[in-house]
């Protein structure tokens, strides 16, 4: 009897999905401008009474849930009324872009600058209580560099752990935009339904800047897929500064970890923070008190931590190692992909003027470069198939949550004295912990 009931239920659900899909197709044809999602709300008498006056587009009821077709404004309404909901769009194929239709950006499912800008603004609009979009700087070609702050009471600067996630210092590493962006999306869309996410958002301030090098990304999309640097016109007529060699800690330490040659792929620029893109990150860093940082890159599937400029270990090697080991384990558990880990100079190659050396060097915080898949050039190098975007994000999600959680747990231990010392260092005063003396 129950098997028959289940079968009938499945058929009914299938019919509902087909019906909704058809409706969505019609809807897409008629009004393609606003992106809609399907969300479900628990069907309880109390919630039903609260839903009724909101004027939402109720699709159908199923399995003690009410399914709603919701645009950003509707999601905002739900947030404002403290009605928890679950994102269910993935059950309705008509809502997700189909490669068969071949419509859309030249870069497929990856974000261009304009697409990312629109999506970040949508996220902020849909979740105004917990998301706020900031412009932290402008690129050389006058594109905005965005950072999305995610936290409860987002308008307030609370005494909470702060964690920074960065993406796309290097233009050709398209996947490094997607992972931090999807992290933001995940935190916002699962805030109401996922206890771990809610804790992360309530007890910390997560800052996500998915696109540090928008000019380079656009050039990579429009003209040359393997473009790496920003779009600085150098004195010798060549283009680009490697943003991940332009940070101010041991900048230009040697010519192996970065290059003084403008045409080189790892050209460090004319001075530390010579580029507006790195200055944007620096200025955000100066304003905040981050307890941890992750910067996403690709490829090689490895978690790197300072130092990059020297093989000598830092004085916090054990902590770095332990956090990286835990993150690697969590990541492997998702799709079985193993992320190696270790100090940057030893596990990868020498780099000077990079983000993590600077963040650790001046602030003493755990700072990780996560080199996303694939593992090698033969596996795709800086290319990831569009279908790999979600799996790569999924395996990085627990590591990101883990690091946020670590920051929350250790926030109390982050002594006022330490903070004060760090402020001095950021302002160029005082000694830097763990700095290799030469």
């Amino acid at each position, binding site marked *: 009897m129950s098997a028959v009931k289940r079968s009938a239920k499945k058929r009914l659900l299938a019919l509902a999905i087909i019906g909704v899909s058809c409706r969505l197709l019609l809807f897409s044809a008629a009004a393609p401008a606003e992106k809609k999602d399907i969300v479900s709300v628990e069907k309880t008498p109390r919630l039903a009474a609260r839903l009724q006056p909101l004027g939402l587009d109720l699709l159908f009821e199923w399995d003690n849930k009410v399914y709603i077709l919701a645009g950003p404004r509707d999601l905002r309404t739900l947030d404002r009324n403290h009605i928890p909901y679950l994102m269910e769009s993935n059950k309705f194929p008509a809502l997700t872009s189909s490669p068969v239709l071949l419509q859309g950006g030249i870069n*497929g499912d990856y974000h261009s600058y304009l697409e990312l800008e629109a999506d970040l603004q949508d996220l902020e609009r849909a979740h105004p209580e917990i998301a706020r979009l900031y412009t932290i700087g402008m690129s050389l070609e006058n594109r905005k560099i965005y950072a999305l702050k995610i936290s409860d009471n987002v308008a307030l600067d609370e005494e909470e752990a702060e964690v920074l996630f960065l993406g796309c210092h290097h233009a050709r590493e398209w996947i490094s935009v997607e992972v931090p962006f999807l992290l933001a999306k995940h935190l916002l869309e699962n805030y109401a339904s996922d206890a771990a996410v809610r804790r992360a958002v309530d007890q910390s301030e997560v800052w996500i800047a998915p696109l540090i090098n928008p000019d380079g990304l656009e050039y990579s999309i429009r003209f040359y897929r393997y473009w790496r640097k920003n779009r600085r016109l150098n004195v010798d007529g*060549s283009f680009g500064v490697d943003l991940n060699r332009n940070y101010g800690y041991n900048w230009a330490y040697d010519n192996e970890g970065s290059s003084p040659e403008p045409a080189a792929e790892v050209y460090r620029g004319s001075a530390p923070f010579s580029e507006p893109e790195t200055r944007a990150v620096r200025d955000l860093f100066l304003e905040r008190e981050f307890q941890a940082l992750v910067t996403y890159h690709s490829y090689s599937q490895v978690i790197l931590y300072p130092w990059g400029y020297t093989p000598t270990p830092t004085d916090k090697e054990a902590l770095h190692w332990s956090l990286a080991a835990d993150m690697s384990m969590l990541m492997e558990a998702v799709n079985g992909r193993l992320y190696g880990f270790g100090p940057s100079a030893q596990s990868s190659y020498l780099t000077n003027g990079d983000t993590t050396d600077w963040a650790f060097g001046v602030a003493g915080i755990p700072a990780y470069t996560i080199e996303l898949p694939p593992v090698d050039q033969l596996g795709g190098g800086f290319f990831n198939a569009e279908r790999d975007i979600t799996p790569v994000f999924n395996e990085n999600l627990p590591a990101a949550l883990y690091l946020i959680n670590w920051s929350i747990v250790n926030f109390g231990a982050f002594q006022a004295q330490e903070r004060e010392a760090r402020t001095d260092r950021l302002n160029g005063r005082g000694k830097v912990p763990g700095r290799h003396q030469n």
Partner: protein
Amino acid sequence: MIKILYVLRCLLLILSLIVLPVAAPAQLVIGQYEDEAPLRTWNSFGLATAASIGRGETMLAVADDCSAALTNPALLASLPRLTLSLNGSYSRSTLFRYSIVNTGVLASDKNLGIGLFALDFGGLSFRLNGWTLAITASLSEAYDRPQADVQSAYAGVPYASILFRQTGFLRTVNVAAARKIGGRLQAGIGLNFVHGELGREVKDEYFDNGITISHRIDQSFSGFYLNGGLLARITGRLDLALVFRTSYDRKSKNRSKLRYQAPFAGTDILIEAASDDLYHQPCAAGLGARYTLSPRLRILGDLVYIRWSEYQVDYFGEREARDFGPAFKATVGGEYISPVRLFKKQAVVPLRVGIGYDRQPMRHPESAYAILSFGTGLHWRTFGIDVGGQAGRESGSGRGLEVMRFCFSLHIRL
């Protein structure tokens, strides 16, 4: 009956010209611009055949042949009862910065040139019940770029190569009608269908591991617009012309294939996209004057204004930034008719000279071409040939880009 057959043959010839691939790369050195920038100039307004090229591209107030349908259809009413025209050209342009050349990937210390041979115009006009009708086909724009095929080597052994290739064109088929209104006025209107294509390819190859990264973009264009004009005889010596071209949406069907192949590892990643986009083309207006100093000598001047500030590009679903302002092209030319005898028949040899200033639409850096032209020809009985050449040099970009064009026209006038 013979005349009808003659006209039909001519029509067949014109149609075959329309479907022929008319541009062929003549010289491929390396060179620069936006992908959709026409070679030579953004300010294309109709097509200048050899006679008008010789006078500095003055063509709004004088009908040399049925190419007038593309610029000022009113002039068609001045043509003989039946005309046939063909025009071939060789043009050469130098470029510096375009696509991946001199923008960070491939570098050159000098301007790069590209030459194109083209049979770029064919047309027919005839008079019917007081109306003059014309059908013409022209190669109005070319988007070819100097090809780049560069190998990298270490210790004399090549290990990688990079290829850049772009070709493209735009053809215009025009149907026009004109009529004399009273003794002093002529009016004409034309319907223009444009179609064309643009293909661009960038390909990296790494020889040691067999990795290939390729990006192929194909675009096909279509659209239509109206053009028209008036010619007024102000005095016995002075004619004035007013012309216009409507703005229009040049539709573009775009497809992109971005591919990463590492055959040794079985890796094949393909990112495809397709999009229906458009290039909103600006409207244009012009003023032309012809002053007859003597039966043998006349001077002409044209001013064409193109409202490039309304130009818009939607490319794979995104609005592309183009910092364009209105642009204009001013030209002045003179023509002296020298009578000669050929095979005991009267013939004329026109001698032409002209100058022009062609301001490009980019705001930064400001850029303009100064152009010097010359031309001659021979008109004998019903046949005529014209040749014309022009050379121009750009100022503003700091690169001193150059353009030159040589044209050869054949006419039959009955």
